[in-house]
């Protein structure tokens, strides 16, 4: 008699759980939103653009290997790699593996930024009119500089006067909405990729023209000046000296000329804020930076108290490049230094994990901003482009070089050769990611160091072994790709 009453009660209990099954199974993510909601509002598109900005930072790109890979591959006894990471060691040896993780990570992250930019560009009509040019300009800027990153690392160099129909990188300019047959592209030609970069950056320069053009303008993101600065790099790589000089001159003009150079070379680095010399930089702070234990450029370069792995030593032959008194060549030897703020010079004798060796103080703080293009580079570029072009757009080459030297407290020059320009660039821009481009443009060579399987061999500027392989993971998944010649 009792049980009879309990049974229906229990039945109800049992069924309660299933009253609304489908609702019950509908669980929403808490840290993500549906892709369907992103490109429906102005804010959504702007958020995706900001996401693309986050992508181009990071240890895989401008806050890390964009700088680091270039200088390791081109390294010709300016530094020693003494760390345990085999990928970097092989890069310094100029015998990279197709399976190296950092080579794949750069590729992946660059295309991720490109896809976000493509999505933004495909949804501009949702963006408020007042901000549309800025959004479009920034997205084109990001796409342009990402293709510049990809083409300079993963393809054989552009050669002026040649058709440049050799393999570049896949050129994707529409957003991905699903995995289809179109998701398996082959490599576009180098000429086509450079053309796309020029189109993107030139359009960006125009679209951003209504914003400020000086240091830190547009909250430190893209401006017409930053677009022009990258255009200067592109034209230099393509051997278009006049255009390069014009773009560099445009930047220098917008920044106010030599006066915008920091007081000392050291002042351009390890900063939390903009300096007057920053044309383009990656912002970092305590909660978003390229990493500290195993990643990020400061990790490898620094050897301070409780900071840095000290994996990169600066060689004595590099230090010999500086004349006495050159502020760019000073070495601090003080065992009591704790942080990079205690180092007033460009070099120091390491403390912490790699004590006793010479370290560069350009990268000495995990969360400091990363200068990507400094005004000094633009001045040196204008000088070189004018020199090669036989022109004096903006200034005479010698004046430009001496402006940079004067800031470094180096002696004034009265004559100029291409070789001197090269050496000045090394002194000013070493370990900032320009060594590979400079090696190619000046037709230099590099010698594979001890330890490399081709130790002692001289690798010319156009040697295939100075080009990164297409990442093996990409080769494995896309049969339309071809591998670079040194890795077949």
């Amino acid at each position, binding site marked *: 008699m009792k049980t009879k009453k309990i049974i229906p009660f229990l039945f109800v209990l049992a069924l309660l759980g299933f009253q609304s099954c489908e609702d019950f199974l509908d669980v929403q993510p808490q840290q993500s939103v549906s892709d369907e909601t992103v490109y429906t509002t102005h804010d959504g598109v702007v958020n995706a653009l900001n996401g693309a900005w986050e992508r181009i930072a990071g240890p895989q790109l401008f806050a890390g290997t964009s700088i680091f890979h270039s200088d390791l591959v081109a390294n010709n006894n300016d530094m020693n790699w003494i760390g345990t990471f085999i990928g970097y060691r092989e890069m310094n040896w100029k015998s990279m593996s197709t399976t190296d993780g950092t080579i794949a990570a750069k590729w992946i992250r660059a295309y991720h930024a490109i896809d976000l930019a493509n999505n933004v560009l495909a949804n501009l009509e949702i963006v408020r009119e007042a901000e549309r040019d800025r959004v479009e300009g920034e997205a084109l800027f990001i796409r342009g500089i990402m293709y510049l990153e990809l083409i300079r690392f993963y393809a054989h160099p552009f050669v002026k006067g040649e058709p440049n129909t050799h393999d570049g990188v896949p050129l994707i300019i529409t957003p991905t909405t699903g995995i289809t047959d179109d998701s398996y592209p082959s490599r576009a030609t180098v000429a086509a990729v450079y053309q796309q970069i020029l189109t993107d950056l030139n359009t960006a320069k125009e679209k951003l023209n209504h914003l400020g053009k000086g240091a830190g303008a547009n909250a430190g993101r893209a401006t017409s000046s930053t677009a022009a600065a990258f255009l200067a790099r592109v034209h230099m790589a393509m051997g278009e000296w006049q255009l390069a000089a014009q773009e560099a001159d445009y930047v220098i003009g917008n920044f106010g000329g030599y006066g915008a150079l920091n007081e000392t070379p050291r002042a351009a680095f390890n900063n939390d804020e903009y300096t007057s010399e920053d044309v383009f930089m990656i912002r970092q702070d305590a909660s978003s930076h390229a990493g500290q234990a195993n990643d990020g450029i400061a990790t490898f370069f620094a050897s301070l108290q409780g900071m840095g792995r000290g994996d990169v030593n600066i060689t004595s032959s590099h230090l010999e490049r500086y004349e006495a008194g050159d502020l760019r060549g000073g070495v601090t030897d003080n065992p009591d230094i704790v942080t990079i703020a205690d180092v007033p010079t460009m070099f120091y004798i390491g403390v912490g*994990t790699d004590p006793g060796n010479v370290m560069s103080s350009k990268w000495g703080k995990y969360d400091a901003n990363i200068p990507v293009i400094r005004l000094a580079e633009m001045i040196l570029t204008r000088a070189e482009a004018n020199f090669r072009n036989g022109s004096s757009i903006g200034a005479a080459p010698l004046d430009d070089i001496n402006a940079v030297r004067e800031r470094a407290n180096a002696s004034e020059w009265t004559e100029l050769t291409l070789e001197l320009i090269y050496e000045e660039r090394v002194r000013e821009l070493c370990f900032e990611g320009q060594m590979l481009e400079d090696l190619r443009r000046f037709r230099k060579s590099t010698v594979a160091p001890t330890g490399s*399987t081709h130790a002692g061999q001289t690798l010319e500027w156009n040697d295939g072994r100075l080009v990164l392989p297409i990442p093996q993971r990409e080769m494995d998944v896309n049969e339309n790709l071809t591998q670079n010649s040194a890795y077949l």
Partner: protein
Amino acid sequence: MKRILIVFGLLLLMGASLFGQQTRVTGTVTDASDGSTLPGVSVAIRGTTQGTVTDINGRYEISVQPDAVLVFSFIGMTTQEVQVQGRNIINVALEREMVGLDEIVVVGYGTRLKYELTGSISSVRSEDIAAHTLPSFETALQGRTAGVHIQAGSGKLGQAVRTRVRGASSITASNQPLYVIDGIPIVSENLGTAGNEPTNPLADINPSDIESIQILKDASAAAIYGSRASNGVILVTTKRGKEGRTRFNVSTQLGWSEPANYVDFLNREQYLDLFKTAYSNVAGGPDENYIIWSSWTDALDWGLDYWRDPDNPNDLTKGPDTNWEKEALRNGATQQFDISASGGTASTQYFAAISALDQVGIVNGNSFDRISGRLNLDQKATDHLSFGMNMNLTRSRNFRVANDNAFASPLQMVALPSIQPTHDPNTGLLNRRTLYENGLVVREYNNFDQEVFRNFGNIYVNLEILPGLTFRSEGGLDILNQREMEYRGRLTNDGGPDGFAYDRSVTSKVFNLENYFTYNNVFAENYDVNLVAGSSIQRADFDFASMSARGFPNDEFRRIASASRDFNASSSGTGYRYSSFFSRANLKFFNRYLVTLSGRMDGSSRFGADNRWGFFPAASLGWIITNEEFMQGIPSISFLKPRFSWGKTGNSEIDNFASRGLYAGSNYAGLSGMISTNIPSPDLKWETTTQTNVGIDFGLFNDRITGEIDYYVKNTEDLLLSALVPATTGYTSVYKNVGKLENKGWEFAINTVNIDQAFKWNTNFNIAFNRNKVTDIDGQIIQTGIWRVEEGHPIGIFYTKEFAGVDPENGDALFYLNKEGNETTTSRAAAADRIVGDPNPDFVGGFFNSFRYKGFDLSVLVQFVWGHDIFNGGRQWQADGFSWFDNQTLDFYENHWTPERTDAKFPQPRFYQGNGYGQSSLLVFDGSYIRLKEVTLGYTLPRQLLNRANFESIRIFVRAYNLFTWTDYPGWDPEADFVGTGPTNQTANIRIGYDFYTAPQPRTITFGLNLNF
């Protein structure tokens, strides 16, 4: 309610009114095996709280109703019920509990007798796991059951354990089995920080509380758990009280442990000797022009800060000589204390236990402790209604060290040159000028404490609606609260210059409700029917919060309140839900023909709205041939049952939102934005495993020999694969149902009673052969590190450069240039990638022998894993011939190429060049091992001695773990399994057999005392 009370009252009155007609019963209780009398046996009157205990001569005396039933129970003996039927003398012989064919086996939503089973289920009983001083119970299963391969991660305490039931059935989804405790699925996956190796939430369960463990292996057994059963199901049943007086069990253990193995690195003299050789090999070689040092001592001075003896500055052999391996490892200790009480009346039974475990690990800085309490209660409210609850509270603490792939990891101290001292000889302070970070500095200043509060609770109501038809409702809650507090001191690399603190909390709440009907009946005497039908829902929610900061006044301050800069905080949450309906029919005809049919319908929140529901059917047949008439004339075959099963199970253990297109938040130095993280895959559905099992259970010579033989084929299709896509799309992978993989194999388990006299000898041998093969993944190749998944091969094969030996002419390391392996090169980078190893074992198993004579018992468990390869990533630096200054292994020192030793195993050492340096098959080794896993010697005091003290039994024992390992593996331990930090399911599935400065298992000896009274 009132009515129930009235009924109770009436019942009580009825009982009272019958008191007048009692009779006196006396008798003796003996042990059926040897006829000896048994003192201390509980004699209870069924349905009452009355009872007595036998005296020193095994005699008892009790007053009962003439129609009463007496219940005789004694630990280790089968409980016997005897109807008084008016007798005055009742003598009883109790049988020893046997693991036999009439053993009750928990099968999920019910129990079966072992002989009636048609599926493949392995059982482990409490004796095999109780009183193990292991942090988690799974490791006690190693080598005990066929087809269950269990691998401890390392000698660090409380680390995740890899368990594979009949091989890996998935690539991207989890391959760990489902754990169900007392009917409730629980959280068993790692919830620790991504910055360290995974930990094991199963360490929160006290092994001493466990009554039995059943492992459901084939589809017929497991399919009742449907979508979550592809990796097998491990059912854990905890102890419950039995009617009778309160019995106490007290157990205490004390043990010591030491590293089971040392690799041996070079001492000062050997280090200098080898370095000198390595230098001179380069100085005189073809690259001489690139040598920047003037001599080998110049190179040493360039790279290292070391100490020379001030009195003999030119004699380098004088000076500090540090054995860093001995600094990294140490002797450990173990202490465990358990006390339990159980008993009850006919209507109320209880089991209550508390336990404390304290372990000091063999890795410097690592320790673990746990305190837990349990109360299991069963209450019979009426003849038809019973209810009960289980409650388990645990606190466990794990004092952790850095992950194996961190300079701060203790084991990485072995990389430090022996010529560098632990302490600065001048200041006496810890040496901070070592080649890499001095792990002793880390040990001194860092801490990483993980504290877990775990609460398993469940309640049930059982109602008999009609005779044979019952309804059961179970609600369970598994709440886990985890805190991780880390501090890195100012003098450490990761904590400098002013200290770093990290604080993380995790809350996991899993709620489960199961409702089901069971119907049991026998029709026409010969048609035995058992039916189950019901439903289940599960809801799991996880919340995470973490914060970190830097800048502490000094290392005394370790909480974030005292930090001054770099404050970081994050919180996140996730969850999943299941909704299920299930049904099963067990049919037995003429006690000979067995049929089991089951089906489960599961809905999961992880899949797209159109693919949420999956159906998982299973069927199995068994035929007890020995119950046939024609077998009665063959007495040597006491039991023979062929069985066959087929069924489908599922796997949905993927990311909670894998099917959706997702954007996550991003932060570019304060500029918030969104990035795409997941490309939509709306058609995503279950991964399905179809398993066919053919087996036979047999008993020979009156069950002196019993055994099981199984052959299975497990085909997984619609693999939930994180399929690689070209990164040019902006994505690297998409979740798809692509492809198939297969596991097939044989399992043999044989139990024999070799001698059954006063001296008893039992043997159990089990061995399992599993073959795993990825049969179709759409031609894709998944490669992470050297591990690869490729069609036609087992999961996780090693794919890298193949070492071709040492050139006898000059000591060059050679690699195969091409895939065919007929040309060699000295360039590792130029060499072809090839398959160079397989981390999946050919067979695994165990060999268990137990002996008993009078009060003595001895058991010996040998466990073996054979035919698998290990990738020893650490040897890339431990035996690289001084590509840098890392200390080298003794076996490299003794076996490298020299002009005199041209047939050497290892290449010529060449300083700073790395002759053979880098990942290649030079780092791959055969990991086969046979291990003397466990030896226990016990002595149970004779009962006569105990009676005065009122003890039922006293046993003292000594037990040794990992006493000896036979292996050719040159690392610390072939049972190495470094899965990395914060691994995804996929990386954990693929990265098998990875040793990276991974700590060995401890060798432990414990002394124990067990009292029953």
